[in-house]
């Protein structure tokens, strides 16, 4: 590597931004080249001097003066409670209804499980398991009845589509809200962009 190539990479080398191979090349050059070593040392000294600057202390009455200005009544008070970017209830409503549809699809799957068959398998394992199996079978049948009742409401394709739309809307609103909150928090920062 040439000196000018090394010097262009020196800061990235110090920041640890180079690949191990690139870093090894720089190290190799530095071992052989006093001029580039000096350049690296001067860069480090400059940063060390900045970092060693004494912390500038504010005047002892600094806080008192800020608070006196605020209490003088000449300063606009902060706008009371932080207003929400977007109310949460549309998100909750949309996601709640959408969630019900999802539950119905899970129910569809549950109906397809044969609980009596599951019970018989357990009976074959022994008498203790037999009692548990009977209970599972009964609970399974009850679940099937419940799910079937729920499904009757949702089997209309239009209803399913509307509910899915709501779920999607809920997710969109939530993302919008999160994005908005972040953008607002950084708004003052972005005014600096130049």
């Amino acid at each position, binding site marked *: 590597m040439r000196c000018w190539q090394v010097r262009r990479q020196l800061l990235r080398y110090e920041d640890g931004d180079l690949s191990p191979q690139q870093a090894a090349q720089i190290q190799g050059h530095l071992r052989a080249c006093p001029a580039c070593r000096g350049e690296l040392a001067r860069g480090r000294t400059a940063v060390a001097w900045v970092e060693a*600057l004494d912390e500038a*202390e504010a005047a002892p009455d600094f806080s008192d003066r800020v608070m006196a200005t605020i209490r003088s009544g000449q300063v606009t008070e902060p706008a009371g409670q932080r207003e929400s970017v977007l109310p949460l209830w549309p998100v909750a409503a949309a996601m709640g209804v959408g969630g019900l549809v999802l539950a119905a699809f899970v129910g569809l799957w549950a109906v397809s499980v044969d609980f009596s068959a599951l019970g018989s398998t357990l009976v074959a394992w022994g008498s203790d398991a037999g009692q548990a199996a009977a209970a599972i079978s009964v609970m399974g049948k009850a679940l099937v009845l419940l799910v079937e009742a729920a499904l009757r409401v949702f089997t209309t394709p239009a209803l399913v589509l509307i509910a899915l739309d709501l779920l999607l809307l809920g997710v969109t609103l939530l993302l919008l809200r999160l994005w908005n909150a972040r953008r*607002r928090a950084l708004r*003052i920062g972005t005014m600096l*962009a130049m």
Partner: protein
Amino acid sequence: MAEESDDLLIRRTLHGDVDAFGVIVDRYRSRVFNLAYRMLGDRDRADEAAQEVFIRAYTALGSYRPSGSFSSWLLAIAANYCIDSLRQEPFAAVPIDNPKAVATAVAGAASDPHAAYGRTETQQLTHNALGRLPDMQRLVIVLVHIHGMSYQQAAEVLGQPVGTVKSHAHRGRARLKRLLAPHMEENGL
């Protein structure tokens, strides 16, 4: 007594408890003043700027979101104020050949200005070299190398991509090295 979190103090302030804001001012006055001092170059100007930054922060407190860090939010206001102020009037360098000016300008000047002078000559040269950087380069150097922020945190304060912040930092460091190198040779470095 346990220290109250920034967010709790802010909630109390928003509910009308002005004293809670006083705790915030005490907690951050050094950081804000120090940023203003290194950005503007002069203690009086830094004092005025830091006062105004806290007043602005108080007025705008309702727009602070706890999703970010309060210190980033506050330092963004300070950085913004300093950049605006520098458009009206540039960095005020301290004349190095004037020991009295140096001693009074040195942050937290010691009781004996002349004893402080030798030790602070490098400090003053460094301070003035910082002042000769373009404002954004100086701002990034101050945030990263004086406030000890990561590039990521500095990027959050400035609302700029990390890559841009890094490039300001690198150009600033290269320039500082050139400005301070003659003085390093004097000191046999």
